[in-house]
């Protein structure tokens, strides 16, 4: 992954901050070519995000349902008021937060263990590293179905194995959330494990060895040497997984369809915009979800000082 690519950084860093007033023909040509080559991607990325997002902000100030186009009228910020004063919104925020906290923290622990194993083993290294790509490569909807059928009352083997009899996993909020988390964790732990493996490879062996010689126990080496030295990789993995978990949609859609208090913010957005075609309210929810993602990214980048230059490979 790109995380490991720091040595090339020097080359990419702009050498001169303020370009000389008179550019040579070649430099001018280079500039123009640079912009020309970047333009299509730049335009496409913004056309499909910035414009619709602006449109969402605009739509969110209207009372607008597709089934009633004539009734479209400007209502200012009242859609936001409706959403934010509704208990359902806050229940969904809580559900999403629980899923995010549980999955990301468990994934970090499991992912780190897996990364350690992949880093240390000698025999069968390739097999293990390939097998960990399997959950990563499978379609989320398919894995969600597999987990749903595994827990389902009529077809599942889990009750059988755990000796739970006729326990209905999808009947209550918390057990349903457990199944959703299990499916999500299984599917996305490999992502964290691979990012952490890249981080582990960056910890200098000499440091660990020195600690070992000085009589540090495995625990001490782990918490005092290894983890502090790969903090950057951990933070980047956490940031990406947190944002990803916060947007959870596929698993919820397939496993519970938001029943029994398992609805997440993404599912709420989908239900308002597509199922109910209430584009006004739906857009308000979209904008709020977007703001919450911004907030999470901001907290990680400014608050926890996550070094995203590491991801971009242009750290200087």
């Amino acid at each position, binding site marked *: 992954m790109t995380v490991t690519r720091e040595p090339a950084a020097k080359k990419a860093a702009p050498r001169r901050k303020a370009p000389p007033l008179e550019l040579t023909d070649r430099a001018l040509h280079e500039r123009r*070519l640079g912009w020309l080559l970047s333009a299509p991607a730049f335009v496409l990325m913004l056309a499909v995000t910035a414009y619709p997002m602006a449109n969402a902000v605009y739509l969110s100030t209207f009372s607008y349902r597709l089934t009633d186009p004539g009734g479209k009228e400007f209502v200012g910020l009242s859609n936001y008021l409706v959403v934010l004063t509704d208990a359902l919104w806050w229940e969904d925020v809580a559900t999403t937060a629980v899923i995010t906290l549980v999955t990301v923290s468990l994934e970090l622990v499991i992912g780190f263990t897996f990364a350690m194993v992949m880093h240390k083993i000698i025999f069968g290294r390739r097999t293990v590293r390939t097998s960990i790509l399997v959950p990563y490569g499978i379609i989320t909807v398919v894995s969600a179905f597999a987990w749903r059928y595994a827990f389902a009352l009529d077809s599942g083997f889990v009750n059988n194995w755990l000796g739970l009899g006729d326990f209905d996993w999808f009947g209550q909020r918390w057990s349903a959330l457990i199944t959703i988390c299990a499916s999500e964790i299984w599917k996305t732990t490999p992502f964290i494990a691979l990012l952490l493996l890249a981080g582990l490879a960056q910890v200098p062996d000499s440091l660990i060895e020195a600690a070992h010689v000085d009589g540090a126990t495995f625990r001490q080496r782990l918490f005092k040497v290894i983890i502090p030295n790969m903090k950057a990789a951990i933070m980047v993995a956490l940031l990406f997984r947190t944002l990803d978990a916060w947007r959870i949609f596929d698993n919820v859609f397939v496993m519970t369809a938001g029943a029994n208090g398992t609805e997440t913010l993404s599912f709420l957005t989908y239900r308002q915009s597509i199922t109910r075609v209430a584009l006004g309210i739906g857009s308000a929810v979209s904008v709020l979800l977007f703001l919450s993602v911004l907030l999470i990214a901001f907290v990680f980048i400014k608050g926890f000082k996550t070094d995203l230059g590491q991801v971009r490979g242009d750290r200087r």
Partner: protein
Amino acid sequence: MTTSRRAQVAWAAGAVLILLYTLTPIAWMISLSLKPGDDIYNKQFLPTDWSLENYRTVFATDLFTSALRNSIGISLLSTVFSVLIAMLVAYAIARLDFPGKKLILSVALAIAMFPVISLIGPLFDMWRAVGLFDTWLGLIIPYISFTLPLSIWTLSAFFREIPWEMEQAAQVDGATPWQAFRRVIVPLAAPGVFTTAIIAFFAGWNDFVFGVSLTSTDAARPVPAALAFFTARRSSSSRPRRSRRPPWSSPSPSSS
């Protein structure tokens, strides 16, 4: 540091654990698909009696095959465009000196973190207005946009490793920057491009949000969306694996 024998055994046990972790659910999926008829309700991990009946049913009906066609076509086309466009940017970033480089990388990063679900309302509205709703192009455009950041990062990382002296040599020999890019760098970059293409293809292949929101018929509905709706559309038999409409599949009654 001498790794003790006991430690090696412990790591090997860990490796076995990882294999169990990754492969058990896969085994369960395969086992499910081999359970004929009512055997799916046997509540056992393994089928009591296995058959390929389900596979025959799936390929006999048009429901799955049309979705498969859509998925492969849409993912392939968006991958080709995404990689082509990303190649230009990655070259510019790795190679050329121009202001705005950081802006492009930051925009790409921001888009990778974007909550795509926030866009489906407005996109749904826009696509209906311009006639892109439920068409291949209607999915290809968002797929390109959202695979671009990944493609740009991966490719620019690869491009930085390329021996650029060869490009300079070509330029010294009289090639324009464009020719140097086209004739010298592209062949060198092929492995990186291929890796990027695989990643981009899987991103499109795995997409569910757009597939489920921006399509309504077999005309463009990709596999993940088709699977999710399978239960709703076929009420009985014919595909046991996804045949029964579960009690929780109706939307929750509460609404704001």
